[in-house]
């Protein structure tokens, strides 16, 4: 009977472990797709001035670049969600951890290498192609409010506006310039109207009411900036394809896995989720601080020579870590140490209480 019970238990545990892996994959697919789509929409709305009636192919063009930008947060978030689920039905705990960790690590390390679309090039390409379809130029014989200007024209002939005027609010009075014909061109900084005479070219940008929905306010911006900074560092490492990328991916995954210890701080799972999320955010903020502020100051204090003492150029360490030996070792070392402490608490000092005693 015991053997049978153990077999049943093992089968259920393996099932739960596999379920955790499947859930991670599904959540990753959904979260990555959602984040990519949201980021693509944000890119089109905020950076493609006067975006024309959005053609699906335009969205598709921006998607690879958007995917690269959101990949790290998407993987970390998915891993966290999978851990929340895993804590309820852990299955074979070590195996679950191992599989989830390996999958997340693999996704992080190889994911960005699959998509190598540089964002700015894509944006520039789309901008260049959208000369004719500029949405706000589809309104002849009406005052078109733009950012710091009003535009009016009688008709459009090709890429030229005919018989119109521009009220340029940035200029001292008189500010109304009449034109018989003015070409519209697009460049890296958006659409430009070529006015004859001394007025010259004027950049056309959408009015605030149009661009506001795509411009996050300060608090949302700071949330995004947090992930952006983390992601930029991650992409910089992953671009090097050296040992640094390996170390970063490994440590980031370990931190998320180990911080799941906070998912059992109380017997109120919802509060645990919030606690774990807060702790994770604090750790990653600390990681950002180490890289962007602390090490920069240390580098200034100790000088470039000290920087290369331990990892001289051409040496094996430099070959493995690239140019970023200290930037890799110090912050990731701190994170690895924290992970170790969390794992120790999770498995050694405070091993999980038995589920049969829910109010223990």
């Amino acid at each position: 009977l015991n053997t049978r019970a153990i077999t049943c238990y093992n089968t259920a545990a393996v099932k739960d472990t596999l379920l955790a892996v499947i859930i991670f994959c599904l959540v990753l697919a959904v979260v990555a797709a959602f984040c990519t789509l949201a980021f693509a929409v944000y890119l089109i709305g905020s950076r493609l001035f006067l975006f024309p009636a959005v053609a699906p192919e335009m969205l598709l063009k921006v998607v690879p670049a958007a995917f690269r930008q959101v990949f790290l947060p998407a993987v970390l978030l998915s891993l966290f969600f999978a851990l929340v689920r895993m804590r309820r039905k852990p299955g074979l705990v070590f195996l679950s951890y191992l599989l989830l960790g390996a999958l997340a690590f693999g996704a992080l390390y190889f994911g960005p290498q699959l998509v190598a679309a540089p964002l700015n090039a894509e944006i520039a390409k789309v901008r260049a192609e959208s000369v004719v379809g500029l949405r706000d130029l589809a309104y002849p014989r009406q005052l078109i409010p733009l950012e710091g200007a009003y535009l009016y024209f009688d008709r459009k002939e090709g890429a030229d506006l005919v018989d119109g005027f521009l009220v340029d609010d940035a200029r001292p009075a008189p500010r109304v310039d009449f034109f018989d014909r003015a070409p519209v061109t697009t460049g890296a900084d958006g659409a430009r109207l070529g006015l004859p005479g001394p007025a010259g070219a004027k950049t056309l940008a959408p009015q605030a009411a149009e661009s506001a929905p795509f411009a996050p306010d300060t608090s949302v911006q700071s949330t995004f900036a947090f992930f952006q900074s983390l992601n930029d560092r991650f992409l910089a490492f992953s671009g090097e394809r050296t040992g640094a990328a390996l170390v970063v991916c490994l440590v980031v995954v370990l931190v998320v896995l180990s911080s799941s210890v906070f998912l059992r701080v109380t017997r109120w799972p919802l509060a645990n989720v919030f606690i774990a999320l807060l702790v994770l955010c604090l750790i990653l903020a600390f990681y950002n601080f180490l890289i962007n502020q602390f090490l920069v100051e240390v580098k200034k204090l100790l000088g470039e020579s000290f920087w290369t003492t331990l990892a001289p150029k051409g040496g094996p360490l430099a070959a493995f870590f690239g140019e970023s030996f200290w930037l890799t070792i110090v912050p990731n070392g701190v994170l690895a140490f924290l992970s170790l402490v969390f794992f120790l608490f999770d498995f050694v000092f405070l091993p999980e209480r038995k589920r049969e005693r829910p109010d223990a």
Partner: protein
Amino acid sequence: MRNPVATPASVILGTLFLGFIAVVAFSYLTTSKTMYALEQARWSYVWERAFLLFTDSFFAFQCAGALIAYSLFLSVPVFFERRSLFRYLSSVVISIVVLTVLFLVCREGFAPAFKRHMRESRAVGLFSDALYRSALEEEKAGDPVTALEYLRIALLSDGRNKDKIAEKTAIFSRLTDAQYEEYLARTTGSDPREEFDAAAALERARAAFAKKDYPRALAFAQAVLAVDRANAEALRIAGIAGEKSYGENAARQTADERYLFAQKEMGVKALTAGKAGNAEELFRAYYLFLDLHRRFPFDQNTAGYLQEASDLLPSVSFFTADAELALSFKNLADADVVFFNGERDGVRELVSIEEMVAAGDRTYFRNVEVAGFREQNGTRRVLYHYLAPFGKLIGKNINLNGIDKAEPSRRTTIRILEGVPPDGLAKGVALAVPAADLHSFSLSQTDIADRGLGELFALLPPFRPQPLFAQYARVDDLIVREIALRIALPFFLIILTLFCFCIGLTQNARYLSGAPKSVYVWVLVIPFVMIAVMEVVLFLYRMGAVFLYEALGPLVGIIVIAALHVFFLILALLRFSGKIGSSLRK
């Protein structure tokens, strides 16, 4: 039941209440004394700010309440028949709908009114503060009378401000008698030259006597004697000046009288023409009588005509100094007001105004640029294009005749840039649009998002015969978009609340004998974490909805947005029903 709190709605209400108290405390603690809020409006400012913050955080508090409700306080009752399950579900859903209506009332009813009131009191506060700062500068520059005048106006709207009162008292205590007289002359609202001041007249008599201008000295001395027959100094000056001037100035007096008569005759003609509507003649009459009054201050006729001309001036002009003062308060200005001022005989008139300030019942403009053009057979011809440095709204006209109170050479005139301006400019640019709408035509006005749903509807037909922004591209579109999003938002709140219930049901606490007190700390923390989460969620929601609207066009966009809301609402209802229904015993 593990807690006296019995229903999910009461948990949510509790969270909303706690959130409101926290927001009021935050608003009170962060309202700095140095802010622009008026002293007497400080409490209403704190309250209104708190209310707006609460409305912005309503989503977060309601969703936090929904998360907490089933995860900590409530357990799903066991149902033995479907009817009781449905009764329970409908009671929860109805309570959520009621809470959402509460959100709608706060968001679309009170919040726009509070925003408007805050904006108005902010404008008045900024004006009062700017006057206070100007007063300090004037005082430092050695002009306490002007400083006091600024402080007096500043205190009209901010009468309880201790700093301003203290400053006014301090300046008052340092005034000399002459400065006090000058201040009184200014604050009584009448021109000092019209007031008879015996001491000043005696001083002027002394000065004229010293310069050997005996007729003038005699006139001033006689004026003093008219009110103070025993004034020894005036008697002495009158005696000597009378004797000296009698012989030698007899001829000159006759010439002066002839000059006065001729000038008055000319002035009266100009004044009559001015009364008939000729603004230029009115200005001529005003400056002519002003000059005469300076030279012959005791001529009652001149004083009367000058008063008459002064009374008529505001109907055809304004003082440039007043416009400069009002427009110097940049914070009050609506920038870049551009609109088409109707179409007459095929000529379309464009008006571009750099700045517009409404101070009380007066509205002033800076750099009013007007261009008229005709579009015919595919070609456009500019008929006129001119620029005026200042303007004032008088009746239904933007008057461009800025004049100086004392100096005719400092009158502002229009600068013709092209063509010939139309006739009848003396009264200014006749507005073909309601003057009250000018404020809305400013590019700096991005307050569509600040307006209530009712106000937004009021901008469009059928509530308005013609849309306010008919001559602008896209603005009506943006209003329709805003209305669509506002209508969709409450449904999004219901969807989120239901999903939060589901998460709460999944993540419910496992305490057999009541939760320890330490856990309740998280009841307080979760709503505030949710504020940050909800800000991101709402940003993504709004961005996505706007993108759909822009990408698919208004009609299809609205249909798709509505369909998505219906889909997610059904999904949320099914999911919630499924979770609650799992306790149904068959």
